[in-house]
């Protein structure tokens, strides 16, 4: 028995960065292909129950309808009876629902913003993140066939989750006005401005402070500033705190803030940020979570952020498949299928 | 108007078109051409040959095979101040773009209370005779003439072609210039200097006293040939080429009918609902008391244009069938019958 959930964000990969930067579009057709491959992979990995979270575009449901499931195994594919409205709250609600349904692993299609929403709905989910978004620091580039396979192998217990996953870091944000806490998986940025506008961020002059959970040099997006100045990878504790502007600019770093878009970014200070150490961000300004302007901070309003490694269990696809292979899971004698036999 | 004299330079119908476009483009920077295969290739009939070489791809534009967008290109660019010539390779293809022609091109000025001006020329090639079958051979001018807001021009010879095309380009209204495919190689005197033939003015190709023959495009030439045969039988035909079909020079036709008392309209389009019906109605309204016979009409049978040369030959009126029709109007028989 193994249950794999799948969440698709139909809005990923279609924002203004296709115009202001050089991001590639991700069409619905492309996403449906990803869903199909991931589900086939999960089934082949041993999943016996696939929980499909509906989305406003019906991508997941349409993708699974066309599958040839003659795998010699009994697999149940269920579409959750959860309404999809077409906003980011959908992803959060779907993740919560999958937690209640007891999904062993969850495959998520989307960019950093989508993965963040999943974490908001189910913080300690066992996650296989597939990139269909734009900047994609959190989800790595991986073919959906293999991502699905890994999700299936872990869900079916072929590979132990603890062997092949790490706990994602999370920048937890709380507000002094009593509104709900929020979180970021990659970066939290305070920037000048008064509106969330078209949501993406691509103007380096507007930056005021950056808190990066993932600060890896070879990434695209705001977190790359931290990654190039003071690398702290996703598995290491703590993060990086960069302050921009002010009277004492100490340096310039050239960083790819969006796909194909490099800027000289002036900064004042770069500091390692210990796990659990709070950083106070004061308005006015706009808070960007994982690359999207999402919340306006009024003048004098305070947000406090700290990084803790208590986020999703991120499944390493390569390690999972390698672990399964090392136990001869995929090997069988000629003429006798390794699996598919009624036991 | 001045008629060409024999010592003038001769040019083909297609090159007369080409020269009108070329000289107009030289004269007015706002004039440009767009259409399928007109640039590097020069147009399927060579109509736009060499123009891109002279004016570049900015002013002689190869478009996608997108008739609606081609006409839309003309509408939008003319209403914003350019003087476009947009080409529909075959007249049949206007049906693909009929919304843009009928609902947009023709009506924009009126719908906008007169505040729009569309100096747009749509050029196309009509008519049968190449075994091009039912979708590349039609004569659909009656449809266009039925739409208020359009002007429709259909020259029968190289001289008129150049002069009418120049007028179309200079015209501050949408015009449709129909070239007949079988006339493209027709040679005739064409002055080198730019000149215009006014729209809405018919041309009496052959003065006569016994019967009026109204005909345009290729059929005007067939009618002239029929008139030559009938002259030997002592029948003196007056052949009128209206040249512009919308607006139609009713006055010239009516004056001729009052003089000859007999009139026949010859067109290549199917007879039913063709322009012949409209002309017949106008003549009987204006000259009923002068007529010695019902207004006669010659047109194609009510069928699509057939492919086989054997069928197409009978489908399209020619000098012989026109002569038969003219004799009928006069109550005469062919010699020896």
């Amino acid at each position, binding site marked *: 028995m193994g249950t794999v959930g799948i969440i698709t964000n139909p809005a990923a990969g279609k924002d203004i960065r296709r115009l202001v930067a050089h991001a590639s579009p991700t069409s619905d057709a492309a996403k449906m292909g990803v869903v199909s491959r991931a589900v086939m992979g999960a089934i082949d990995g041993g999943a016996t129950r696939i929980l499909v979270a509906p989305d406003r575009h019906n991508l997941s449901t349409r993708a699974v309808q066309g599958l040839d499931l003659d795998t010699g195994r009994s697999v149940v594919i269920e579409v959750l009876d959860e309404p999809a409205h077409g906003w980011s709250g959908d992803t959060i609600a779907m993740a919560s629902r999958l937690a209640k349904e007891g999904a062993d692993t969850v495959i998520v299609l989307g960019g950093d913003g989508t993965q963040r929403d999943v974490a908001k709905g189910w913080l300690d989910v066992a996650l296989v993140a597939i990139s269909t978004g734009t900047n994609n620091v959190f989800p790595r580039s991986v073919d959906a066939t293999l991502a699905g396979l890994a999700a299936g192998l872990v869900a079916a217990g072929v590979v132990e989750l603890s062997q092949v996953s790490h706990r994602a870091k999370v920048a937890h944000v709380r507000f002094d006005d009593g509104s709900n806490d929020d979180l970021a998986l990659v970066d939290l940025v305070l920037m000048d401005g008064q509106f969330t506008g078209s949501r993406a961020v691509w*103007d380096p002059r507007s930056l005021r402070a950056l808190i990066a959970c993932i600060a890896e040099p070879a990434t695209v997006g705001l977190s790359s500033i931290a990654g190039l100045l003071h690398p702290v990878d996703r598995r290491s504790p703590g993060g990086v705190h960069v302050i921009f502007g002010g009277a004492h600019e100490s340096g310039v770093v050239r960083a790819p803030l969006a796909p194909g878009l490099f800027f000289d970014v002036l900064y004042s200070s770069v500091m390692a940020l210990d796990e659990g150490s709070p950083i106070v961000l004061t308005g006015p300004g706009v808070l960007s979570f994982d690359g999207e302007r999402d919340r306006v901070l009024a003048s004098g309003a305070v947000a406090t952020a700290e990084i803790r490694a208590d986020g999703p269990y991120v499944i390493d696809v390569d390690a999972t498949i390698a672990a399964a292979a090392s136990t001869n899971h995929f090997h069988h004698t000629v003429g006798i299928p390794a699996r598919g036999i009624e036991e | 108007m001045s008629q060409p004299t024999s010592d003038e330079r001769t040019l083909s119908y297609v090159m007369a078109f080409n020269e009108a476009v070329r000289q107009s483009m030289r004269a007015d920077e706002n004039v440009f051409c767009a259409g399928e295969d007109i640039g590097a290739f020069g147009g399927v009939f060579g109509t736009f040959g060499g123009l891109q070489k002279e004016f570049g791809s900015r002013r002689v534009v190869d478009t996608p095979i997108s*008739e*609606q967008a081609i006409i839309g290109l003309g509408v939008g660019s003319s*209403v*914003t101040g350019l003087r476009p010539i947009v080409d529909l390779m075959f007249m049949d293809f206007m049906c693909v773009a009929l919304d843009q022609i009928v*609902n947009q091109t023709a009506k924009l000025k009126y*719908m906008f*209370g*007169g505040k729009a*001006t569309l100096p747009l020329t749509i050029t196309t090639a009509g008519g049968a005779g190449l075994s091009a079958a039912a979708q590349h051979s039609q004569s659909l001018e009656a449809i266009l003439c039925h739409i208020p807001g359009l002007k429709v021009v259909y020259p029968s010879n190289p001289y008129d072609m150049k002069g009418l095309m120049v007028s179309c380009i200079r015209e501050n209204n949408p015009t449709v210039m129909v070239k007949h495919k079988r006339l493209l190689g027709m040679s005739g005197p064409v002055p080198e200097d730019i000149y215009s033939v006014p729209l809405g003015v018919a041309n009496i190709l052959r003065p006569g006293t016994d019967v009026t023959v109204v005909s345009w495009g290729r059929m005007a030439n067939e009618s002239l040939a029929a008139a030559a045969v009938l002259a030997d039988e002592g029948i003196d035909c007056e052949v009128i080429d209206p040249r512009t079909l919308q607006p139609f020079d009713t006055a010239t036709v009516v004056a001729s009918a009052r003089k000859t008392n007999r009139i026949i309209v010859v067109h290549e389009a199917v007879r039913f609902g063709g322009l012949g019906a409209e002309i017949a109605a106008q003549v009987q309204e204006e000259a009923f008391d002068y007529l010695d016979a019902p207004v006669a009409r010659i047109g194609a049978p009510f069928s699509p244009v057939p492919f086989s040369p054997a069928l197409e030959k009978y489908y399209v009126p020619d000098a012989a069938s026109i002569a038969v029709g003219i004799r009928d109007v006069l109550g005469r028989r062919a010699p020896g019958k």
Partner: protein
Amino acid sequence: MEPTPDVLRDLHRRMVRIRLFEEAAGKLAEAAKLPGFLHLYVGEEAVAAGVCVNLTNADSITSTHRGHGHLVAKGGQFRPMMAELMGKATGYCNGKGGSMHISSLELGMLGANGIVGAGSPIAVGAAFTHKYRDDGNVAVAFFGDGATNIGAFHEAANMACALKLPIVFACENNEYGEFTRRDATMAITDIVDRAQGYGMPGVIVDGMDAVAVCEAAAEAIAYARAGHGPTLVEAKTYRFYNHHGVQNLGLKYRPDSEVEVWKQRDPIFTLEAKLADVGVLTTEQCEAVWVELRADIADAIAFAEDSPLPNKDQILEDVYTPMAVAQ
């Protein structure tokens, strides 16, 4: 980039002008004072205003059957607009166009259009002129989700990309083509998915968020002005009223609950709340804009009602442009 406070106030004013004009037109229609069809733009104000606030009169737009909003956003005056809706001689089109063909060439508004999808090829022509003259101006084609199912749109989009024209295809995806849900008539959900097929960038923007539309449109227009070619901007929006007329609830083809959800995201009230938050316009200042413009509407209705009807002789005027010089 964020719009400046001046642009934000301008944006707000354009949206309120649209709303007031449309609500007034709706009331007149209910009172049987407007002949013909009426397609109201209420709910979609952020799109027309967010785009047009980035344009000048020298830029061209083509519109749809739901075109009042585009003309107002482009600077249309209430008096000749209201007169046109009443079929009066003082209307923008001398009473010959009406609601579905309302236009103002001096404002660069090349017409509302009664044929779905027909505006896009015309916008391509206007964009051609701008490129031909290298005048730095752009064309914007407004159209709905339904228009992307008709050939004219595809031809226009392809030709604009092939010729690399300065044009923005601004799609108002309001989820319904006339009286039929979008998902019954196309297998895709995002119109922007079509952009790839033509070879232009396509972006989705929240069409109920005027700042977001303004920001995205500014980028798309700058992209066109810079000579990079066409873009497709899809604004997710919603019309509060029926396809035509003034009914909004109790319709057979869409649930009232859906209407209510979208109305909670009313683009004007959303913007006003934001503007008040950041001090660009206080609640009182917003109200003052409404009061001032309501007076303009009342003036326009009085003007239109007092205006003469066109006379019979004008039927044959404006079919053709008279040629000044006989050839």
